[in-house]
């Protein structure tokens, strides 16, 4: 029989390793570290088409993630989608008033994200403001449809 002190030490190592593994899974593997701690401010943007965009999709400017999509809902008056963006606190009072928002796709098959492009205005966006200039999510079917109809028109002319 091994002496009980050694057994206890080994069990301690085992339990510590198990807890460390759980901790690593929580912190390093999962999205816990990217959970927004409700800080920051919200701006909204209206789109005709947000297909593919999800809550928690990244909001980027110049390729750097500066916030996340907080909420997407449908406005039954204007038949538009209203997307609420939560921008991190460190970028408060930085984005110009005429910043434009577009929905892009990361790679050909990747996830959708909101890309912001700065304008030149001196005024800045604050809590609750709305982005006026938006560009919709690119829907591949529509694009192919347009392409085919144009192709048909062209061939008809000749």
């Amino acid at each position, binding site marked *: 029989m091994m002496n009980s002190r050694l057994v206890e030490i080994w069990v301690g190592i085992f*339990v510590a390793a*198990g807890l460390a*593994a*759980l901790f690593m899974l929580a912190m390093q593997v999962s*999205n*816990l570290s*990217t959970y927004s701690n409700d800080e920051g401010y919200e701006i909204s943007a209206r789109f005709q088409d947000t297909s593919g965009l999800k809550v928690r999709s990244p909001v980027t400017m110049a390729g750097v993630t500066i916030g996340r999509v907080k909420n997407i809902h449908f406005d039954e008056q204007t038949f538009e989608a209203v997307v609420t963006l939560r921008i991190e606190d460190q970028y408060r009072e930085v984005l110009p008033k005429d910043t434009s928002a577009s929905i892009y796709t990361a*790679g050909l098959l990747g996830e959708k994200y909101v890309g912001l492009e700065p304008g030149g205005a001196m005024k800045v966006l604050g809590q609750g403001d709305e982005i006026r200039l938006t560009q919709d999510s690119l829907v591949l079917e529509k694009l192919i449809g347009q392409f085919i109809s144009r192709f048909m028109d062209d061939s008809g002319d000749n």
Partner: protein
Amino acid sequence: MLSSLQRLGHNALGFFQRLGRAHLLLLRILEGQPALVPKFSLVIQQLYSVGVLSLLIILVSGTFVGMVLGLQGYNTLVDFGAEESLGVIVALTLVRELGPVVTALLFAGRAGSALTAEIGLMKTTEQLSAMEMMAVDPIRRVLAPRFLAGFLSMPLLAAIFSAVGVLGGYFVGVGLLGVDQGAYWSQMQANVDLYDDIYNGVIKSLVFGIVVTWIAVFEGYDAVPTSEGISRSTTRTVVHASLAVLGLDFVLTALMFGE
């Protein structure tokens, strides 16, 4: 004709009697759990033989499973130019499925069979009866600490398996195949959810821990007290525990991830 019907009935009755005995035993083991608090050294002893001694096989298999996932995932993803998603594939596969399931299968083979053989031999050599003679309840003294140790070890072992597997996938994907290191982790963090994926994986491993140890302890306690009986019980432990784990895994997956 009649005798074959009788045999069928006999087997069915025997099956249900065993099932009933297993549940009664589980009830008595659970009743015995509060009494373990003052005698926690018994549990520590069992944590050593069930958990610590299983550590090596878990570490080695976790590393290799992760490495294989990295290799296979890379070869599939590279055709779509999506090898940045390798981290997601490795982590989700491990945390949701392979971590709990493979750990439970290894656990049944490594620790479950040992538990059954030990308890079965105690029964055969009448150590359990001797305890009863001394007014020591063998269920509380022998079975309860083993059950608790199995229940506690499984989630820890599964977490170690998954963590080591993710590192193994990292080693192959980033180290050998040249996936971008930042993409490996950031894509993983963006797509693995703490509640949906990791908590559910832990719940799975807790359930598997209960089932595997329960089967192992019951088979040992219910063994026919001969050398042949012990060998049969040990085999049954591994077979039944593995089947139970695979079956339950489907049910749990359907409950957790099927919407």
